[in-house]
């Protein structure tokens, strides 16, 4: 990809992140459009780290993706194909991603000991086993807290989900507070119902907002609670999202690039994710659904990974071309993998005992493969890791110390599970 298509690269157009955000904060319309994406990316690359996750919801099959076992009783009908890293093979369902393997790393020995969807997801997103009565913040909230400057106009924690409907997910920040909770943008669109109605004038809207703030402040003086904080934060977050609606407008992207991402939901969502990361959002998750293939696993993985492959490969290539991959951690995860055993419906069921996670960027060793499963993929035989190890690794990759602690209610809570540690083989 040609950087010059997006940036002239001269010093005149250089803009650091603080000044960029400051300019936006002053409401100088048009500033955003006056600077090129690549220039922003370069400044962001200097300024800090970001994290992107794509959550293959339902549980992608490791055998149809990162750890194929062709020719075995569990291997299914697909081939393993070579990648851009000699000796590493992935499923033939990922031909475009295979060409990006020199930018990626694989963890093939994941054992998360949890085969139920919601609990598996929480374990992967918090890096911990579930503890009754206590909730840990999700990775996105942790990243928003640790990597953010506190002065961002945009939320630091954004979820892009398929389908309509947006919202504010205060629960995923747990004790970190609503400021770090995620905002969901359904189908990549900001919450439409928060736009000022056509029949409401700007002046009337300002007066209304002033009244709201006055009442809010009065209420908070005497009855301030975590709940009221969450409401206020969600309103403020949503307002910021609306104020920066242009960030969500992927029609501003090069049409050829949009074509390459794909003119379908996941293509649009990944292009939007890159755009958000480029504009300073600390953590973006894209959810791709669905991989819960108890029935006809192979047909459905053709369809789902057929959607995933090219957009994801383009996303990696795009980040690399813009100089963003060195400062952006990319993780492909699910709540678990799928059974090596093929059931009577040509399906694969839930399987957390031996599955894979793919990563890229942020200095992780490209082409590294850590962990190994046995010949037919039923067990980890080398370098078994769990979600805690992965969580430590994510934070180390973005330059954070996961062994530090939070202190909610003056109680020390380690940022990452102290029983685990980072996967050193992945870290440069």
């Amino acid at each position: 990809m040609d950087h010059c298509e997006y940036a002239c690269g001269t010093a005149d157009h250089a803009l650091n992140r603080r000044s960029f955000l400051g300019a936006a904060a002053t409401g100088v319309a048009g500033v955003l459009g006056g600077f090129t994406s690549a220039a922003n990316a370069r400044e962001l690359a200097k300024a800090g780290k970001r994290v992107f996750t794509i959550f293959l919801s339902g549980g992608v099959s490791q055998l149809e993706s990162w750890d194929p076992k062709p020719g075995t009783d569990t291997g299914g009908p697909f081939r393993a194909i070579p990648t851009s890293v000699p000796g590493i093979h992935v499923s033939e369902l990922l031909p475009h991603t295979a060409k990006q393997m020199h930018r990626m790393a694989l963890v093939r020995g994941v054992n998360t000991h949890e085969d139920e969807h919601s609990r598996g997801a929480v374990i992967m997103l918090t890096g911990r086993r579930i503890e009754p009565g206590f909730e840990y913040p999700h990775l996105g909230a942790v990243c928003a807290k640790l990597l953010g400057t506190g002065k961002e106009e945009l939320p630091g924690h954004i979820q892009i989900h398929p389908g309509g409907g947006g919202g504010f997910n205060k629960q995923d920040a747990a004790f970190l507070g609503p400021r770090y909770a995620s905002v969901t943008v359904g189908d990549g669109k900001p919450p439409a119902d928060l736009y000022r109605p056509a029949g409401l004038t700007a002046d009337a809207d300002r007066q209304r907002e002033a009244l709201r703030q006055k009442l809010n402040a009065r209420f908070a003086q005497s009855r301030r609670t975590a709940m009221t904080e969450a409401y206020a934060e969600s309103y403020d977050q949503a307002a910021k999202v609306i104020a920066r609606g242009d960030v969500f407008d992927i029609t501003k992207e090069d049409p050829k690039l949009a074509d390459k991402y794909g003119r379908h939901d996941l293509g649009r969502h990944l292009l939007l994710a890159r755009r958000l990361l480029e504009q300073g959002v600390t953590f973006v998750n894209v959810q791709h659904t669905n991989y819960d293939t108890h029935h006809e696993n192979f047909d459905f993985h053709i369809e789902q990974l057929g959607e995933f492959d090219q957009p994801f490969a383009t996303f990696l290539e795009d980040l690399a071309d813009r100089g963003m991959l060195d400062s952006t951690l990319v993780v492909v995860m699910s709540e678990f993998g799928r059974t090596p055993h093929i059931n009577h419906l040509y399906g694969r069921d839930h399987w957390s005992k031996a599955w894979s996670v793919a990563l890229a960027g942020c200095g992780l060793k490209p082409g590294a493969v850590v962990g190994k499963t046995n010949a037919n993929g039923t067990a980890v035989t080398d370098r078994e890791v769990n979600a805690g190890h992965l969580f430590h690794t994510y934070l180390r990759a973005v330059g954070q110390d996961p062994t530090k602690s939070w202190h909610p209610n003056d109680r020390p809570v380690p940022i990452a599970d102290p029983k685990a540690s980072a996967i050193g083989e992945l870290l440069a």
Partner: protein
Amino acid sequence: MPATVDFKQTRVGLDLKHPSPLIGCRFDPSGRFLFVSAQDSTIQRYDLLTGRKTPLVGHQSWVRGIAFSPATAEPLPVHPGPPVVGLGALAAATARAKPFALISGDYHGKLVWWDGAAEVPSPVRTVEAHDGWCRAVATSPDGKTVASCGNDHLVKLWNAADGKPERVLAGHDSHVYNLAFHPAGGRIVSCDLKGVVKDWDLNTGKVVRELDAKVLHKYDTGFRADIGGARGMAFAADGSALAVTGITNVSNAFAGVGNPLVVLFDWKDGKPKQLKPKEAYQGTGWGVAIHPAGFTVAAGGAGNGRIWFWTGEENVHTVNTPANCHDMCLHPTGTALAVAGHTGAATVYTMLPAKK
């Protein structure tokens, strides 16, 4: 067609075991052999006269398409079930089978030609036929043309004698699941994931008409994926009807919650009838045939399996099978049928009346 067939007396004649789950099954045109394909990427040949089981090794992926050239032969006096003439009963008197070609299509998109009657068949020819899965294979009534279809949305025609490509039929916009030549020649039908049945003129390569089996397709908005396709497809021997089977009423694609269905088309006017199981049964129809006696038979299943028989639109008889039936084929004599089970069992059911 023996007048003595009574499908209401359908019962197990032979139960043939293989250690790997089965995918497809076909009797050769003489009826002497039953070929089954398995998840170990082999095809197994069961000689119903001698009982010998012979593996055909050469594919590196799953095989679902199996066809023969010549497409028809004079059936041997074999009936694989009570009264048993199979599995060694005629071993001493068995002559070498007449040569025939078996053409199989796999999920790597390859077609392989075999000498189906050889002592130990080995690949004679391999053709890279499709980009992605080859889902079905058929031979023309004159045995001269092989047709295949697959995930590249194409139907392809091949010279049965030498494997050379003859024509590509393009027009489907999703995976092509199945195909069948019309018995009178000149036409071939193909059905895709979305239940679009195309009727092709083999002389021009053009679509003559489309038949609607879209009831066999659904885009599951919950899981954001398509489910459908013709898992089984067959003409009546006289060409008067076309049967297509699959799954309908899907409420959960990823758990396979739906009902098996046969769509039976009147060939002349293209009007469909829906043949449903009488019981409330969840599963998929994987194989279908229109018996020369006029009844329709299909097999499929989910946790276990079923063989359904219809006269007209009424499901008049059902046989429970212990395993999900992943395919079904009719013996050339019309006296038996076979199902390919997920347990690895290839079960031959006889439809002859029991001796009193």
